[in-house]
C-alpha cells in the first residue's frame, strides 16, 4: 500500500509520537472499514485529521444525494479507493415534468473522472441522471471489474446502451433497469450476453417493452446458477415463465411477465407446480394484465411472500381479497386503488406483519369520479397492521378523524405520504381544512422522517410541523398554506430538515429569506409556482456563496417572478452545464 509515502505527518513531539505509534493508521483503517453507514463515516472524518485521512482511505462506497453538491475532481481527490458510487441528479419534481428537459445531471463527466481514478469501480447506482448510450458504452469498456448497474428514473439512453453493457461487462452480477425514460427499440440487447457469461445474480428488465429472445433468456437463466432476482417484462408469456421457473428454482425475487394467456386446465396445473418449485421466492411483482383465473396458481407461493408489488395489476377487490388471504407474512405491499376499500380491509385482516403500504391510483386523470380508495380503507389497514410505518396513499377523499385514528393505531410512522388527489380539498365530512390530520401525524409519530401533505391546509399545519416534527428530513408541500408564516414555521422548527419541496403555495420572499442559514444544513430546496421574485433570489445568492441558486423561467411569465427555484448547497461552485432556461444567480 502506498500509504506511507502519501502520509505527510507534521513532526510531532515525543509524547504525541508515542500515542500515534500505539495506534497505527493501518489498524485505524481496518476498524473504520467496518463502518458502512455514510453518516457514521462523515462523523468519523470530523474527529481529527488522522481520522479524516484514515476514513478517506478506507472508504469504498460513496453516496452523493445531489450530483451538483460536489464535483468529480473533488470526490476523486478525497476518496482514492472507491468501488461503489451512488449518484442522484435531478430534483425529485422532475419525475412529474416540472423540470425543463436538458436540465443537466449528466453522468458522462463523472465516468471520465472515474475511468482515470477508479479503474476498479464495481458498482454504479444512478437515480434521475441523464445517461446516454455513449456513456453506457464508455462504462462497459473502461471498467473491467464492473459488476452492478442500477438505473432508476434516468433518461437519455436506449437499449443499444444496454447491449454494450451485456456485451462487455464480463463480471456483471446485477443489471437493474427501472422506470426510466428509455428508448426501447429492440430486445436484442439480451442476446448480447456471451454464452460464457454466468455471473448474473440480479436481472430486472420489467419496465422495458420490447420482446426479447426467449431462448436466449432461458439459456442465460440456466447457466447463471446464482441468479436470485429475475424480473421479466410484459413480452414474456405465462408459458415461457413456467420454463424459466423450472430453470431457476433458487430464485428469491420474481417479476412475472404477462399473466394472461388462453390456457386450458393442464397448463394451469403446470403453472402451479412451476411456482411451487421455487420455494425461496419472497418478493413477487409484475403480474401484468393478471386474469383472476390464474391467480390461484400463486397461492402456495404466497405463504412466504414478504413483498408483493401489484402496482401494475388492476385487480378488483374480490379477487385481490382472495389472494391476500394467502399472504400472512407480507411486510410490503404495493397495489392499485382498483382493489378499493374492501381490498384494503382484507389486507387489514390478513397481514398483521405489514410495514409498508403503497396505494397507487389507476385513473388519476379521469374527469369522472371513479371510486378508488377512501379513508375507510386506510383506517381498516391501520387497525389490522399495527407495525405499519411507511405509507404512500393516493385517494380522492379524507377526513381529519380518519387520520387521527390511523396514527393512533400506528404511531410508528417514519414515512407518511398522503396524496388527496384533488388539490385543496377539505375534510369531506366537516368541510374543515386538513390541518388537524397532519397535526395528529406529527404529534403522534415522533419518528417521522418523511411527510407529504395534501388537501386544504392553512398555516396551522406548518405550525404543527415546525413544533412537533423534530425528526423530519423530507417535506413535500403542494397547494397549501396561507402565508409566509407557514414556510417560516417549518424552516425554524425542523432541525433535521434536509429536503423541502414546495409547489403552488402562497409562500414568498419573506419565507424564502427566513431560511438563509438553514439552507446550508439542507440538501436542497425547491419552490415552484410560489410568490418568490428574482430580486429575492439574487439577494439570497449574494449572501450565501456556498449555495447555488438556480431559477428556471417559464415562457411568457413576468420577468420579476422566479417561477421555479432550486437551491442547494455545494462545494463545487456554480455549475457550468446548465441549459439556457436555467439561470444560476
Amino acid at each position, binding site marked *: 500500500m502506498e500509504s506511507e509515502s502519501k502520509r505527510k505527518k507534521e513532526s510531532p513531539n515525543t509524547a504525541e509520537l508515542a500515542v500515534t505509534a500505539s495506534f497505527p493508521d493501518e489498524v485505524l483503517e481496518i476498524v473504520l472499514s467496518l463502518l458502512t453507514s455514510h453518516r457514521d463515516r462523515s462523523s468519523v472524518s470530523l474527529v481529527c485529521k488522522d481520522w479524516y485521512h484514515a476514513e478517506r482511505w478506507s472508504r469504498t462506497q460513496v453516496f452523493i444525494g445531489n450530483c451538483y453538491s460536489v464535483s468529480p475532481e473533488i470526490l476523486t481527490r478525497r476518496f482514492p479507493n472507491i468501488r461503489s458510487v451512488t449518484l442522484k441528479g435531478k430534483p425529485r419534481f422532475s419525475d412529474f415534468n416540472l423540470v425543463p428537459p436538458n436540465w443537466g445531471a449528466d453522468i458522462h463527466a463523472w465516468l471520465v473522472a472515474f475511468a482515470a481514478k477508479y479503474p476498479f469501480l464495481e458498482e454504479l447506482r444512478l437515480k434521475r441522471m441523464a445517461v446516454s448510450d455513449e456513456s453506457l458504452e464508455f462504462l462497459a469498456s473502461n471498467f473491467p471489474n464492473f459488476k452492478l448497474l442500477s438505473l432508476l428514473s434516468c433518461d437519455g439512453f436506449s437499449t443499444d446502451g444496454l447491449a454494450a453493457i451485456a456485451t462487455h461487462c464480463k463480471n456483471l452480477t446485477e443489471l437493474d433497469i427501472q422506470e426510466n425514460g428509455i428508448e426501447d427499440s429492440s430486445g436484442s440487447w439480451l442476446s448480447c450476453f456471451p454464452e460464457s457469461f454466468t455471473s448474473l445474480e440480479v436481472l430486472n428488465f420489467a419496465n422495458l417493452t420490447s420482446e426479447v429472445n426467449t431462448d436466449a433468456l432461458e439459456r442465460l437463466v440456466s447457466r447463471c446458477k446464482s441468479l436470485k432476482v429475475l424480473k421479466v417484462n410484459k413480452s414474456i408469456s405465462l408459458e415461457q415463465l413456467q420454463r424459466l421457473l423450472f430453470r431457476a428454482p433458487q430464485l428469491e425475487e420474481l417479476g412475472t411477465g404477462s399473466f394472461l394467456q388462453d390456457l386450458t386446465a393442464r397448463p394451469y396445473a403446470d403453472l402451479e407446480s412451476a411456482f411451487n418449485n421455487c420455494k425461496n421466492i419472497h418478493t413477487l411483482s409484475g403480474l401484468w394484465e393478471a386474469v383472476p383465473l390464474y391467480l390461484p396458481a400463486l397461492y402456495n407461493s404466497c405463504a412466504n411472500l414478504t413483498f408483493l408489488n401489484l402496482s401494475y395489476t388492476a385487480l378488483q377487490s374480490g379477487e385481490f381479497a382472495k389472494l391476500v388471504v394467502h399472504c400472512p407474512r407480507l411486510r410490503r405491499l404495493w397495489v392499485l386503488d382498483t382493489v378499493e376499500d374492501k381490498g384494503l380491509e382484507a389486507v387489514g385482516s390478513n397481514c398483521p406483519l405489514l410495514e409498508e403500504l403503497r396505494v397507487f391510483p*389507476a385513473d388519476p386523470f379521469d374527469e369522472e369520479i*371513479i371510486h378508488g380508495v377512501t379513508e375507510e380503507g386506510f383506517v381498516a389497514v391501520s387497525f389490522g397492521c399495527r407495525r405499519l410505518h411507511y405509507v404512500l396513499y393516493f385517494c380522492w377523499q379524507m377526513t381529519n378523524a380518519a387520520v387521527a385514528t390511523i396514527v393512533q393505531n400506528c404511531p410508528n410512522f417514519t414515512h407518511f405520504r398522503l396524496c388527496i388527489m384533488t388539490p385543496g380539498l377539505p375534510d369531506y365530512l366537516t368541510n374543515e381544512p386538513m390541518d388537524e390530520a397532519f397535526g395528529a401525524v406529527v404529534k403522534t409519530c415522533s419518528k417521522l422522517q418523511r411527510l407529504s401533505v395534501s388537501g386544504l391546509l392553512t398555516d396551522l399545519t406548518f405550525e404543527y410541523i415546525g413544533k412537533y416534527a423534530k425528526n423530519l428530513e423530507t417535506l413535500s408541500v403542494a397547494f397549501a398554506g396561507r402565508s409566509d408564516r407557514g414556510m417560516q414555521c417549518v424552516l425554524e422548527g425542523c432541525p433535521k430538515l434536509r429536503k423541502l419541496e414546495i409547489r403552488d403555495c402562497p409562500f414568498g420572499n419573506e419565507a424564502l429569506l427566513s431560511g438563509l442559514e438553514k439552507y446550508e444544513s439542507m440538501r436542497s430546496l425547491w419552490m415552484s409556482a410560489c410568490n418568490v421574485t428574482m430580486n429575492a433570489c439574487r439577494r439570497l445568492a449574494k449572501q450565501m456563496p456556498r449555495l447555488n441558486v438556480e431559477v428556471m423561467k417559464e415562457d411568457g411569465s413576468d420577468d420579476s417572478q422566479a417561477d421555479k427555484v432550486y437551491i442547494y448547497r455545494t462545494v463545487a461552485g456554480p455549475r457550468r452545464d446548465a441549459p439556457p432556461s436555467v439561470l444560476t444567480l
Partner: protein
Amino acid sequence: MSTTPLEHDYIGLSESSSVPRSSDKLSYSSSSSSCTEENYTSSNKACLNFKETELRLGLPGSQSPGRKPSHGLSLFGKDIENNNSNSNNTNGYAAPSPLKSLVSGAKRGFSDALDGASRNWGLSINGKPDAELGKGAVLYSPRGGLDDKCKIVKEVDVLPLSPKPVQEKKNQVPALNENEPTSAPAAKAQVVGWPPIRSFRKNTMASNLVKNNDAAEGKSGSGCLYVKVSMDGAPYLRKVDLKIYSNYMELSSALEKMFSCFTIGQCDSHGLPGQDGLSESRLMDLLHGSEYVLTYEDRDGDWMLVGDVPWDMFTETCRRLRIMKGSEAIGLAPRAMEKCKNRT
C-alpha cells in the same frame, strides 16, 4: 326526413329554437364526415347555454351556473358546504343534489338526444345513402372520417354525462381551490405534474387505455379491455375489464355485484352482508324486470341494448356501459335490431 314530431327537444321543453338547429347540423354531418367540430361545438354551446339557464346542468360535478365556469373548480372547498348534508357515503366532491339533477336532466337530455339522433341515424338506416351502408358494414374498422363522426355524435349523447369520450384523456385535474389566496400563475385548467405520479407509471397506465381502443384491431387474447360502467342514480362510476368475462351472464352477474349497493333512490355503499344478498337479488329482479336496462355505447357512439349481438362482437365494439332506467331505453331496441340487420 324526420317523421317524429318535435315534441321533446334536447332538454324536454316543447318549444325550442336551438334543437332544430342542432338536429339540422346533425343531419348535415350524417352524410359525410365533413362536418367540422367547430360547427358542432357552436350549436352545442347554444344548447348548453340554454340548458344551463333552464335546468342548471353542467359538466360532471360542477355546481349551478352561478359558479365559476372553470372546470371542476367549484367542486372543492366551501362551495360544497351546503350540499354536504347527506350520508357519509357520498363523496364530498360530488354532492348528490346537483348530481342528481345532473343525472336526471342528463337522462332526459340523453333520451331526447337519442330521439333527436334517431331522426338522423335511425331513419337514415332505413333509407340511407350508399355512404351510410358502407359505413355500417365497416363498423369495426373505423377510419378517420368515422372517428370524426363518432366524436361529434358522442358529444351529443354524452354531453350531460361527460364532455369527452374515453380515449380523449387529458390531464384535466382542476387547478386550485379558488377560495384559497394562492399565488399560482393564472388558474390553469390542467395542472402539470399533479397528481404526483412518475411519468413512467402515467405512460404505462395510459398505454393500457390505448390498448383498449386497439383491441378491435384484431389483438384478441391480449391486453385488457376496460370500459366504464355508469348507473343512473349512482354517485360514481366503475370500470370493468370485458376480457375477463366470456359471456353475457358473467358480465351481468359481475355488474350486479358491483352495483348491488345501489337500489332505486338509495345509496348505500356499505351494504351489510344480509342486505347485500337482499339488494343483489333485488337488483337482479330490477335488471331482469323493467326497472333497469343494461346498455352500451358502441364505436359509432350509438347506444344499444346489451345482449343483441354475439358476445365477441360486443366486446369488440363496446366502449362504455350504462345501466339505464328502463323507461329511458324504450327507443333503443328497434334500433339495435336494425343495426344488427345491417351487419349481417
